[in-house]
């Protein structure tokens, strides 16, 4: 790891030290990645606590407000994301077997499905926005406190999730470039695998968001 770094020129250390140093620690990298995913879960965990508290406090209002959400779009999006997790796995599998073109195709499909998810999300959000339901919006402000809380939570949690989808798409783009240039390959596929792990987390969070918001009534 250090051998790639800026301050250490290639000639800076003795050959023995280089040999000692060139170790690549895939297990270590994976440990770090899982720790990171763990922090992501806890980040969303804070919001789930807030949801639990207000669901308990405003049970009826949450049921009422959930009627306003479009179940068809929510369920469609769930299928889109689940499928994208599948294509991601296929991409990792293909790269592990050195099928670079196939891996890139599956990665492209994942990217496309992520786009599709965001487009559907955009239509959902803009429909709500059209009705004055958005954080700070007039209609939302006039709602009974519990229903307002539901929608504020809805926008916060799906919004944070949406940001994660966007970040995931950015990472996929850069990984695709690195696969193309050969930096990520059959013998060095950890970066793609970690992108996959992250993507499954994004998927997992959505699987909880769907019933909590769309299916509560």
């Amino acid at each position, binding site marked *: 790891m250090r051998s790639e770094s800026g301050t250490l020129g290639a000639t800076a250390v003795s050959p023995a030290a280089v040999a000692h140093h060139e170790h690549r620690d895939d297990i270590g990298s994976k440990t770090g990645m899982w*720790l990171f995913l763990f922090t992501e879960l806890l980040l969303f965990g804070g919001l789930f606590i807030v949801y639990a508290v207000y669901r308990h406090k405003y049970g009826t209002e949450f049921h009422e407000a959930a009627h306003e959400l479009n179940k068809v779009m929510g369920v469609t999006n769930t299928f889109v994301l689940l499928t994208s997790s599948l294509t991601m796995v296929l991409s990792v599998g293909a790269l592990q077997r050195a099928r670079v073109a196939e891996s890139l195709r599956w990665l492209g499909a994942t990217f496309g499905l992520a786009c599709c998810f965001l487009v559907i999300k955009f239509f959902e959000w803009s429909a709500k926005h059209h009705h004055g339901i958005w954080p700070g919006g007039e209609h939302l402000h006039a709602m009974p*406190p519990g229903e307002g809380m539901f929608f504020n939570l809805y926008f916060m949690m799906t919004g944070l999730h949406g940001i994660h989808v966007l970040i995931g798409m950015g990472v996929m783009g850069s990984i695709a470039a690195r696969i193309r240039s050969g930096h990520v390959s059959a013998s060095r596929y950890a970066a793609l695998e970690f992108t996959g792990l992250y993507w499954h987390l994004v998927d997992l969070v959505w699987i909880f968001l769907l019933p909590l918001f769309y299916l509560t009534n």
Partner: protein
Amino acid sequence: MAESKTGPAWTGNYLQDYGSRRGLMAWLTTTDHKRIGLMYAAAMFTFFAVAVLLGLLIRLELMNPGMQYVTPRVYNSLFTLHGVIMIFLFIVPGIPAIFGNIMLPLQLGADDVSFPKLNLASWYVYIAGAILALMSLFVGGGVPDTGWTFYAPYALRSGSNVSLAVFAAFVLGFSSIMTGMNFITTIHRLRAPGMGFFRMPLFCWGLYATSWIQVIATPVVGITLLLVIMERSLGIGFFDPARGGDPVLYQHLFWIYSHPVVYVMILPAMGVISEILPTFAGRTVFGYKAIALSSMAIAIVGYMVWGHHMFTVGMSDTARRVFSILTFLVAIPTGIKVFNWMATLYKGSIRIEPPLLWAVGFIFLFSIGGLTGLVNGALSTDIHVHDTAFVVGHFHYTMFGGAGVGLFAAMHYWWPKVFGRMYNRKRAIWAWGLFMVGFNLLYFPMLVMGIMGMPRRYADYLPQFHTPHLIATIGSWVMVSGIIVMLWNLIRAIRHGAPAPANPWEGTTLEWQTTSPPPQLNFAVPPSVTTGPYDHTALRAAAAKEAR
């Protein structure tokens, strides 16, 4: 010159530049854990100096009853800034960011941490957070005045620059998480051959427990602070009673992080003490496993005691009793450590050197802090002392007397290793003496005043509190002069100190086996381990052999 430094025969140390980059650029782009640790130190002590100055101003205003130097509003900003800077910019990164970075790989016998680039990134994120915090002083609605806890609903309504300060804390959290992930991975993956978990130095155990807390607790406060920002900008109402929200929920979420984080501050300091005592007692540490595991116990139990900050907010009695009992449970592993330290000194061949004095100072001050903590943890007495100067006295004894003094102890212990120079022993002892006297003059009256009923965070007070306030203010001057002498002595040693040998204190852990200061890759020969970390017999045998 450059030729000789880049060849295989180069025998310089990490403080010297080699390779293509020189001077400042070499530092700013380094991935060397030792240099990153020093960069943290430089930044953190700058902020520390600012926060000490703010603290002195608070004490100056409180010296006499009535308002003399600042308005009540400015006073609110003073204690807010003092808290925010000391907590988020100084003690939380604290020992892990400086000495964790420098010493963890050395003590494990590794070349570096697992993710050196992430390590450098964490420093930049820290600096970004610090800049945001400083910006909140100068732009927009004025200096934040909510206290470092940013309690709702006032933090939602205050016209001051709360959003920016909160965002700064959010960013600093990321830096903390990065360091935590890095250390956990490093400890799992990069221990020297033969070094099982129970052959790790106790400082590494302290860092291990700390890192888990950083990873587990910080995201929760991250999202909470984000919600405060959203609430201020969009009015989402989660913590706003006017919109059906619950301000107490904010307190819960805040303390779910902010209580465990006090163990982020104290566990590494306890680790430092566990290093220093066996070295200066010339014997192995008493109860190694108990000390190691008690760090983990503190981390685990400490995660579940946050409610003791909220005994007066109207929780159910059941909840309060559970939180109170759990709080008392934390005292057990803490006590285990203190008694094991005492037993380590017992019948040891003790050498009085500045690091040992600071370590003993730690035990004394931290014991007062810990015992007054039990007064806060007990339900009935907490109702009496809640939100009084007693609490302020208590957490300064733990945080400053504990974490802060732990850091000073670490500085005196590892300074010769880090810079390859010895500081003046006599001056160091004088500084320690001044500090200890000043510290107790400053904070002990707070405990007394608090029990008498002096509220915390008040800019003015009734005449009966005059004497303790006066003593505390004088104490603040004595203590700060101690700190100044200490820092001057240490900084002076970097240039003018006598060259330090590789192992000036006869320490047994791996960092003493390499040169002072260490070479870029830490060890000329990668070390392997065959005994526990505090085995003095091998060291003595080697010394005897040399004498012959």
